[in-house]
């Protein structure tokens, strides 16, 4: 037993004298750090909760079906939007207003108004400017008031040329000619 103990101690001494030498200790440290990160990341994506929620993506037929469903929904939405736009553009042509002949539709009114040559209505050096939105609001409010006042018997004389009341306003907003505005 004593002999064995002596041999063991000799071996330990020998091993202590010959310590291992690393050729590139920095690289080892980096690899250890990277492995730790990878392990953490892999834990995030492989956590049970996410597997439960998105586990279907690992099943090919479910992945295909749900993706196809998504594409189908988007396709239906695009188709319906295109179809609606087509119908609405046709509908625009049918809008008529007894009050203003040039005020064709709620959709085209803004377009019509943006075509108003405001610079022709105002002198070049005039500092007053009216935005398209304000002008549209003004016209809308006017139409609304006119409609309300018509409901009050005798308040406004029946006239098909109600649009002309606006013309007779006599302020700077008065259009020069209806035809020239369009």
């Amino acid at each position, binding site marked *: 037993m004593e002999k064995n103990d002596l041999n063991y101690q000799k071996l330990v001494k020998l091993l202590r004298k010959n310590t291992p030498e690393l050729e590139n200790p920095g690289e080892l440290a980096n690899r250890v750090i990277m492995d730790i990160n990878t392990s953490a990341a892999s834990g995030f994506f492989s956590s049970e909760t996410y597997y439960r929620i998105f586990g279907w993506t690992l099943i090919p037929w479910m992945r295909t079906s749900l993706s196809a469903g998504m594409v189908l*929904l988007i396709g*239906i939405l695009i188709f319906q939007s295109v179809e609606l736009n087509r119908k609405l553009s046709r*509908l625009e042509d049918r*809008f*008529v207003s*007894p009050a203003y002949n040039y005020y064709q539709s709620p959709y085209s009114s803004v377009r019509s108004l943006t075509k108003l040559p405001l610079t022709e209505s105002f002198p070049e050096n005039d500092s007053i400017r009216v935005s398209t939105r304000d002008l549209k609001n003004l016209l809308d409010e006017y139409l609304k008031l006119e409609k309300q006042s018509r409901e009050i018997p005798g308040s406004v004389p029946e006239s*098909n040329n109600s649009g002309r009341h606006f013309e007779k306003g006599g302020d700077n907003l008065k259009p020069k000619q209806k035809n020239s505005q369009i």
Partner: protein
Amino acid sequence: MKKFKQILRLGIVMLLLFSCEDPDTVVTNYVHPDGSVTRKVVMKRTSEINVPWHHQVPVDSSWNITKTLIPGETDTTWVVTAEKFFASADEINEAYRADSGSNRMLVRSASFKRSFRWFYTFYRYSEKVERILFAEVKAEQFFTQEDISYFYMPAAMRDSLRQGADSLMYIEKWALMDTLETQYLNRGMVEAWCAVYLEANPEDSAFIHSRKELLTELMLPEELSDDSIFSKAFGQDYTERKKEYLEQSVAEFDTLFEKAMNAKFYTCETIMPGKLIATNGFPDHSFKVSWPVDAKYFLSQDYEMWAESKTFNIWAWMVSGGFVLFVLLGLVWRWLKEKV
């Protein structure tokens, strides 16, 4: 045979004008998403309107009727407003079938259709008046696509255009339209008369059909003379030979045409649920669609007044958005997982 000319002379005028005796009637349908319709009939006249009146549309004591007098500078206007809730278009159809008013001879029907299309729900409401004469002549054969919209345009809108900008252009346009309308109505009547006549004389089909154009031309007001139209169109011999059949067919045609003569004008309006997307009527800025209901529109072809609208299905948008997001996130998760 002179009766045929009288029918033509009076008939066309009666079709193009409407009686001042009848109250100015506007029927407004407030269509609800569930297919029920609140129907409002407003009648105006400068003399008293007695209720029950021989209304252009069926109105009876079950309606909520109110009378108003609007004093004017010269005349007082009597306004009768009748309102009723119909649970469905079928109830309106029942009312049409039981109609005893001045337009009872017209075959009218209403229909409502709701289509669920996931993102939107579409609604279609229509009122149809079946043609009076059984021979069909399409207005498209006589009017261009542009003229068609003028042909069906409500009178108030026509007047507005006549008195607004480019009035001269519109006045000229309507002069042309009057001629086209007369030609169209004449053609409808010729076709109807031919159908009546050929029932008794089928062997003359080819001959009669070959003279239809000529007969239509001869029916124009400026061509109408004291001479027999039939003599001019078919020749003296044929007319003499078939005099009995011709007279009989004119009598039959007269009975048929009386329906058109008695049809009373009114304006139909519809307010759809949701946003209006399509119609063959004339919408205004409050999205109320108008159609004139006049015999000339349904003399020779069915007249359908339809409007379509849509409403958003908010829950469908939310479900769809959630689903698309879920699938996209799943695919991204898988892609990241594979990359790692």
